[in-house]
């Protein structure tokens, strides 16, 4: 089930809210767990058992790791649970990729695995792995209550698209949390804004991207319009989902970590990754990069660590070579910045922003491609090597038709709207004006989102299969 759907907004969510706030507090995690199972089963009923198995093994191994803490067995159990978790993920997500490449390399025919990727498996697998590692490290205590742990791993607000909430983030809130009018309003505000980012901006930019891909009238202008539109599309899509998750969590009394902080205003790629998909970046930092030695090793090992981590990050997004290239592209940029670019970028502010935006747009073209052939075709088009004209009637028309939306998206991707609101708030009577306008604005956004949902069925979510 998608957040940005009528069944979720007007059936599932109100029903769960009602149940959640009606039952005694001690049963609220059960409500969350069962409703999350229902939410998950709505999309793919077959894979509920798959997720339950993952949760159960994580729960049991967590207890065993803690029971034998400090002993060799503890490490054996940790290795086992990681092997099971990543084994399942690897089998579902990467088996075909490796088999196909094995076939391409050796010519040996191997049967492909006929298994659809379970929704959200990359997210919940990483949560289980981080939980068991944290238990092993003694950072958190193993959760004895199965429902509590299952509610944490399967919690529908963050189940299919993150952020990757660590157990330590909400450990205490699983046992005791409160909700009041202010928290609920904060959650609603965040949810509606996220919903609007997804439906009113990301989905429409997605339409432009689809139009570009279907068009036979590509031009230099169209390639760049597409590249910018896709970069904004993926930001609003993903950050919109994260906002919705954080907002829903807030309504239920949880504090989920922030996942995006205006990444497009970054002055370097290093900064970009502190602002983009923060929960994933920090996960790889804490559970792969640092255990490998991070940057406290000799230069060769550091480069190895960097490349390993970014190849893994690329592969996490998808089992295709363009995702590997996408990750390695970042590894190279981060390495160059660390070696000598950062001081230059810090001195030249305007250049640094142009540098980041240019490289990020290129990077997302790599990300969006359906394979390496398309990567090169699109990049060639962007740099005038595809033989396409500078302009085409289609590119001019769609730029005009989507120009206002792109402008709104560009402004919305910066802190400018927030700054303006704060400016108004700071003026005399500004607080009162905002107090009246905000509920109206949020209601109008919710109605507009509902209108767009009812009108169209175009509503794919990009991060489903990651």
């Amino acid at each position: 089930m998608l957040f940005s759907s009528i069944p979720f907004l007007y059936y599932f969510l109100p029903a769960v809210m009602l149940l959640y706030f009606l039952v005694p507090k001690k049963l609220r995690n059960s409500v969350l767990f069962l409703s999350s199972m229902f939410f998950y089963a709505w999309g793919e009923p077959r894979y509920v058992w798959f997720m339950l198995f993952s949760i159960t093994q994580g729960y049991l191994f967590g207890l065993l790791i803690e029971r034998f803490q400090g002993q060799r067995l503890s490490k054996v159990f940790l290795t086992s649970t990681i092997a099971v978790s990543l084994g399942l993920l690897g089998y579902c997500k990467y088996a075909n990729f490796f088999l196909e490449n094995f076939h391409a390399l050796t010519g040996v025919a191997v049967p492909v695995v006929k298994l659809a990727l379970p929704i959200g498996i990359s997210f919940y697998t990483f949560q289980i792995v981080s939980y068991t590692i944290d238990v092993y490290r003694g950072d958190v205590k193993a959760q004895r209550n199965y429902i509590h742990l299952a509610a944490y791993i399967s919690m529908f607000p963050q189940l299919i698209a993150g952020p990757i909430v660590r157990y330590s983030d909400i450990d205490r809130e699983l046992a005791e949390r409160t909700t009041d009018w202010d928290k609920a309003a904060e959650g609603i505000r965040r949810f509606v804004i996220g919903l609007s980012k997804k439906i009113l901006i990301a989905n429409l930019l997605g339409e432009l991207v689809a139009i570009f891909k279907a068009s036979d009238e590509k031009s230099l202008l169209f390639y760049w319009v597409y590249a910018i539109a896709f970069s904004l599309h993926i930001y609003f899509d993903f950050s919109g989902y994260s906002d919705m998750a954080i907002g829903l969590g807030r309504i239920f009394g949880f504090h989920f970590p922030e996942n995006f902080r205006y990444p497009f205003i970054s002055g370097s790629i290093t900064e970009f990754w502190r602002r983009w998909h923060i929960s994933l970046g920090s996960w790889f930092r804490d559970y792969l990069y640092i255990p490998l030695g991070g940057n406290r090793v000799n230069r060769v090992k550091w480069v190895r660590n960097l490349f390993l981590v970014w190849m893994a990050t690329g592969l996490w997004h998808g089992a295709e070579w363009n995702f590997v290239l996408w990750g390695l592209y970042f590894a190279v940029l981060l390495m160059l910045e660390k070696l000598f670019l950062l001081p230059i970028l810090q001195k030249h502010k305007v250049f640094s922003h142009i540098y980041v935006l240019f490289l990020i747009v290129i990077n997302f073209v790599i990300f969006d491609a359906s394979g390496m052939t398309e990567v090169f075709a699109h990049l060639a088009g962007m740099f005038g090597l595809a033989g396409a004209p500078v302009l085409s009637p289609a590119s001019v028309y769609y730029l005009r038709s989507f120009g206002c939306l792109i402008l709104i998206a560009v402004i919305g991707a910066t802190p400018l709207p927030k700054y303006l609101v704060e400016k108004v708030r700071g003026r005399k009577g500004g607080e009162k004006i905002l107090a009246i306008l905000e509920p109206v604005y949020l209601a109008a956004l919710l109605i507009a989102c509902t209108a767009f949902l009812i009108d169209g069925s175009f509503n794919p979510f990009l991060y489903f299969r990651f």
Partner: protein
Amino acid sequence: MSEKMKNRVIVVVSIVLVYGFLLWGIFQKDGSLSVSERRKLTQFPKLSVETVLSGEFMEKFDKYTLDQFPLRDLFRRVKAYTSFYVLRQKDNHDIYLQDGHAIKMEYPLNEKSIEHAADRFSYVYDKLLAGKVNNVYVSLIPDKNYFAAADAGYLSLNYDDFVGKLTDRMPYAEYLDLFPVLSLEDYYATDTHWRQEKLRQTAVFLAQEMGVTLSDSYTVKKAEVPFYGVYYGQSALPLPAEDIFYLEADWMQDCIVTDYETDRQMPFYTLEKLQGNDPYELFLGGPKSLISIENPNATTDKELIVFRDSFGSSLMPLLAEGYRKITLADIRYIQPDILAGFLQCEGADALFLYSTSVINHSETIK
């Protein structure tokens, strides 16, 4: 208003909206038809273990909630307004407003579709017409976008290219160019079709090119129903209703119109259809696979076989004056092979009369 009060208002407004629409949706009677979109609405799906496990129930329930949402048409209108006036988009579902017309941006040119149509026409020619008919004609009816796109800055087909691609593959047919004869005013403002009362010159032109003279003398009748065309529903905008007119003449009274599907006679104008979903079906009863019009008082002894789409329904009553018999075949609804048993082609003329929008989406042509 204090921060606390504002927060309470936000929560209460959200609850009212979400639970309000939930309850409204649950208690309102499900609709069966969307008048504006001219389609059946999805009904509550069958709930069973099988449909749940297969995911069929969920998929259909998603569609059901979209189709049965309270104030659905109003929400679609809100979306259209937001697209046009807030996001400043130039079209909504490829439909735009120009000179009081709702117009579909027919674009891009679908070469494969043109080839498919030409191939099917050639099949019909080889199978049914070759060696039997006197003359074969082909004529295309421009969609409304042809008239408006360039001035209004919208994308359109390259119509010269379009016509060339079709006619090049139909060397056996003489092309009759309707483009200069028609204008945007000849079409309904809210619909894709042309207006019969504006087709008199078009009919005269076509007949003349095929060697027939029409008297062009009719009585204009007005149908007493407001007409909302297909683009009215698709645009979701509050466009005004139009009048629908039809042309009558004395010679029509002796004509015999036969519907081969039912093997019954029918009138030129089926007035009951005015109360249906698509009042344009007034003309020759709407979608019919095979019809004949016999005119005992025709000005010639000629016969005409027309392969056509819905545009032909409103034009053919006018051409009937000059032909002893016109047979109309819609090969979107009947296989050409089946037609062999019904058509008498010897000595007749044949006309392929299609709109550009049908040829550009010709997958339904059999």
